[in-house]
């Protein structure tokens, strides 16, 4: 049916699954610290340069940002269903939901690329030709490009691993229902979603009222 589930150094599948979840959460804790400290730095500059940061915040595309948020929320739904399907050993549904998850992820990246192109056209890249004059406005967009860029890299890594997982399940070389692999992949994917859940109000909802 599928590859070997239990592997060294574990003698017990339950313990192996626990170790997988534990290890992944240790990694996710470091990710929380990474993005959390970037958001913290953003909030410090938001206090130091309120007018500039708010003026810049109005220039992001709230429509594309909202669409992207909805896409990632949907992808978390499909990833959770994939995990559930795998637990019930339903191979077809697992592959379908993983494919939908990857599809949503790719959709996010496509929208992001269009948004980046729009931002470049509007000269919202920090540097000598920056469009806005207020001090602090360039700071906002410095954070915008770095944070959304690194988030997009995380998402791309997730998409690649999801596609690889689909391939491995189809080949039959992954004991998808019994190892901790798919739950751990789900945890990573949901964290990428959670990071965006916080980036969205930070970068798109400021200064609109």
């Amino acid at each position, binding site marked *: 049916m599928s590859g070997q589930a239990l592997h060294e150094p574990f003698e017990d599948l339950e313990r192996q699954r*626990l170790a997988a*979840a*534990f290890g992944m*959460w*240790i990694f*996710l*804790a*470091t*990710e*929380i*610290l990474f993005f*959390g*400290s970037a958001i*913290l730095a953003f909030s*410090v500059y938001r*206090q*130091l*340069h309120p007018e500039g940061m708010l003026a810049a915040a109005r220039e992001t595309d*709230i429509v594309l940002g*909202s669409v992207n*948020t*909805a896409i990632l*929320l*949907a992808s*978390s*739904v*499909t*990833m*959770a*269903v994939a995990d*559930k*399907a795998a637990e*019930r050993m*339903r191979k077809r*549904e697992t592959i379908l939901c993983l494919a939908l998850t990857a599809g949503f992820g790719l959709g996010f990246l496509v929208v992001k690329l269009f948004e980046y192109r729009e931002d470049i056209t509007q000269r919202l890249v920090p540097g000598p030709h920056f469009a806005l004059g207020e*001090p602090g406005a360039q700071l906002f967009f410095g954070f915008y490009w770095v944070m959304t860029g690194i988030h997009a890299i995380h998402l791309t890594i997730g998409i690649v691993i999801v596609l690889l997982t689909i391939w491995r399940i189809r080949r039959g070389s992954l004991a998808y229902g019994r190892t901790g692999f798919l*739950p751990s992949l*789900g*945890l990573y994917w*949901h*964290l990428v*979603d*959670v990071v965006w*859940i*916080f980036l*969205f*109000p930070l970068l798109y*909802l400021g200064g*609109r*009222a």
Partner: protein
Amino acid sequence: MSAARESGLWRQGLLMGAALMALLALTIALAFVPLGRLNGVASYGIALAKAGLVALVFMKLGRSPALVRLAAFAGIFWLAALCLLTFTDYPFRQPIEQRQTRPGGQPADAPLLLRK
């Protein structure tokens, strides 16, 4: 039987998806309502609610063993420590340091903050 299993597969996910989309719609709508300082509270509060739902349900923290929850809590704990140290730093910087922190800050010979 197979159909029942199918609906059971999607039910929780779709319910969660509906809740998350509703919160998304709410946060977008509130962003356009002038609430002053409450705008920030509203948008980050709703973000916290969405993240909490994803963490408790999709990431299964609601029914994980204590060890796994501890690892998750550790991330939040150390981030909170970082935030505490940062937010008790900048507001209490003295005038002599303020020129480096904020360009329009007080001159170096201004009286010290928080002292009589």
